[in-house]
């Protein structure tokens, strides 16, 4: 038996195993990296949408200004002043179908919830949408400070808008 050639085969085998091991680790890291990138892009997309739409909700009257379920193109809660929300518009929004509202907010394929909380009394005034957001991954949430005008007084409030994609 030629001992020299046997030794050579063992060398090759060890080298191959180390190489394969290295490849496996690399592919795993690569995949993890790609997943992070996907997640990041998704978050970016959600952040853009939520920033835009929360701004629209608290700073504009919507379009048309006296919108209702049959003619609404863009939903806005404000009256004549930015950050002062009209209760009449919020209540109109509460009656909208979730899928319909989601499409009007350009959130098709995504889930969202909206809450308006009285900050002084820490009481939820309104909640709408998919409220199972606590278990959502990739949840992007924005908090807007506003005043809700209920025609007798202004209620210092927070509007929370959360968006995610399962």
């Amino acid at each position: 038996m030629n001992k020299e050639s046997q030794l050579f085969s063992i060398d090759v085998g060890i080298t191959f195993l180390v190489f394969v091991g290295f490849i496996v680790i690399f592919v795993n890291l690569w995949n993890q990296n790609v997943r992070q990138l996907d997640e990041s892009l998704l978050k970016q997309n959600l952040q853009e949408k939520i920033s835009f739409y929360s701004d629209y909700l608290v700073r504009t009257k919507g379009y048309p200004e006296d919108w209702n379920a049959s003619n609404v193109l863009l939903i806005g809660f404000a009256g004549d002043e930015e950050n002062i929300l009209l209760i009449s518009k919020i209540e109109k929004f509460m009656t909208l179908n979730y899928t319909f509202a989601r499409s009007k907010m350009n959130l098709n394929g995504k889930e969202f919830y909206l809450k308006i909380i009285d900050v002084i009394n820490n009481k939820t005034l309104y909640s709408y949408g998919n409220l199972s957001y606590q278990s959502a991954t990739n949840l992007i949430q924005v908090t807007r400070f506003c005043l809700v005008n209920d025609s007798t007084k202004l209620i210092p409030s927070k509007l929370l808008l959360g968006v995610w994609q399962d």
Partner: protein
Amino acid sequence: MHKKAFIFSLELLVALSIIFSSIYLLTTTIPFFEDSLIKEENLNVMGQDLMQFITKTRISDLQDLQLVQDYLNLGLIEYKDINASFVDVIGTFMIQNKFDYAKNLTEEVFEKLIPDNVGYQVYFDNVSIANKTISNPSSELTLKTLLSGYALNRSLEGYIARAWLNLASFNETKIISISPIGSGFKNNTCVKWLWWWCTKTVEGGNLTIVKSFDIPADIETVVNAELMLSIHEEGGGVWIYVNDVLQHEEYYDDKVYERIPIHNVTSGTNVIKIIQEMPSNYHAHTHPGFLLKVDYVRVRRLGYKEDKTVVIDKRFPEIIASPSVWETFSFDIPRGDNITNATLHLEVLNVDDWGEIWVNDNQVWVNSSAQGNMTIDLDILPYVNHENNVSTGETNVIAPYFDIKSQDDYPTENARGNIIISNNSFVHLEYQKPETIQKYGLIPITHSFEFGGTAENDKSVEFPLSYHELINAYVHLAQIYSWKVALAAWNENQTAPVWDNTLKEWVPEEMQFFKSSTGRNVPSSIYIPIDMLVKNSTNYVEARDFGGTGNKILPESTIEYTYLAPAQVGYADVYETEIQAIDDAINRLQELVAPYNITGEVNYSVSSVTNVRWLWGPAEVKVVLSR
């Protein structure tokens, strides 16, 4: 063992590791959308909302807070202020030095709003009101808003006073300028003695100029008046009258530039008459820089108001000349003003055979058979210095020539006797200012100063402007010989213009504000567009004669400028007594008017104040958020 093969495999392994590691590292450096960016975006939105919130939320909206209830019950916030905004109440606490109340209320509201992971600092005019720190913040956002009617360290109750000069008394100078005027140059007409002999000895004849001028009715006394006599009289007498009183009488035999003391100038309309006798040589005429300077003490009420639309007739002096007449008559329209009308009305008596009129470098009228008494009305708008009817600010010059041609230096063949340009002649101007100044508490004051130094062909002068709010400025060039001049202005922050001897103008062109369009076009009053002169800076004016090396600009050349001086002070600090408030107002007024040499009867108004906050401020409210 084949050591060689083993080493080769290891090398391969190391190489591959390096390659894959590099690829991996490269991919991980792709800039992902980090959570920190999301946080920053949210912080920005939160900050904007917060500023809206603190300015729009009223105390009545916060009544459910126990602290607000306590403040109301204790009278720390009065019920009349129930509709005041949150930030107004914080401002009130701060100016009342109730810092703890401001801090507690701010913290109470901010704790309800601001998430736990966000820190904040709130300042009122850089005095900290409240803050919450977080460890290792990665981003920070600063927002500010102005709150009118608040000022720290100012008592809310007491007396305030303002003061003004009821009648302000100050020294002022008025300059009356006469641009070059002449009686006609030497007569080149051949006078035949015998058939083979003729002489050309008939010179320009007598010249009389009569000019009316107004001295303000509200002067206290005329301090000084002097005539800067700038004429050419070679062998003849000169008589100067003011209001029909002889001021000066002398025989001259050359060009003259001298100061003549003048008396009898009074408030109201005055008349100066200059008579130049027919000289034994050449002819009688005036030169640039023929000025009457009148210094007086003026007493006037505060206030300055410009009309949006200016309609004005600029009257010619009366000129009686023999045997012909020429004149340069200047007028200016401030740069940027919109010209709607410019007409010339000229009345000339005893014309023998020739007339022509120039406006700047345009011959706008000529009549080779002009005769007798003539009335000429011309629309001169197209020839006035403007671009699309907006004035360029360059001084305009009208030059009528009667019984003398503009290109000749002798009268026309038939010129005989006296020819008169009537003082019924005028330029009618209508223009509109894009913006007008209308200010109570300011006084327009006119001063002047001379260039000084020595006579030079190219002469500059420093024009320091510290606190002056200019409303107009003029150069009155003085010359014994003159032909054409160009003037430029600039300030210490600019590079001085240079003279281009080929183009015969100052470069860059935008620094040049006047250039003679024709020979002899050297008006005694040249307007400087005031936007060329900068406040709190040393400005420079440079004039160059480009007609000949002997044409010097004299040191008596003068800058005349009018500025607005303040003579009132508003309310300031609150004092415990009326006397203290009045003393403070008078002291402030005296400090204010001192640099302008204004005196006068001080008037004051004192008021008691109780929470009259709108008199002060604004204060700055700053919020810094960190995450």
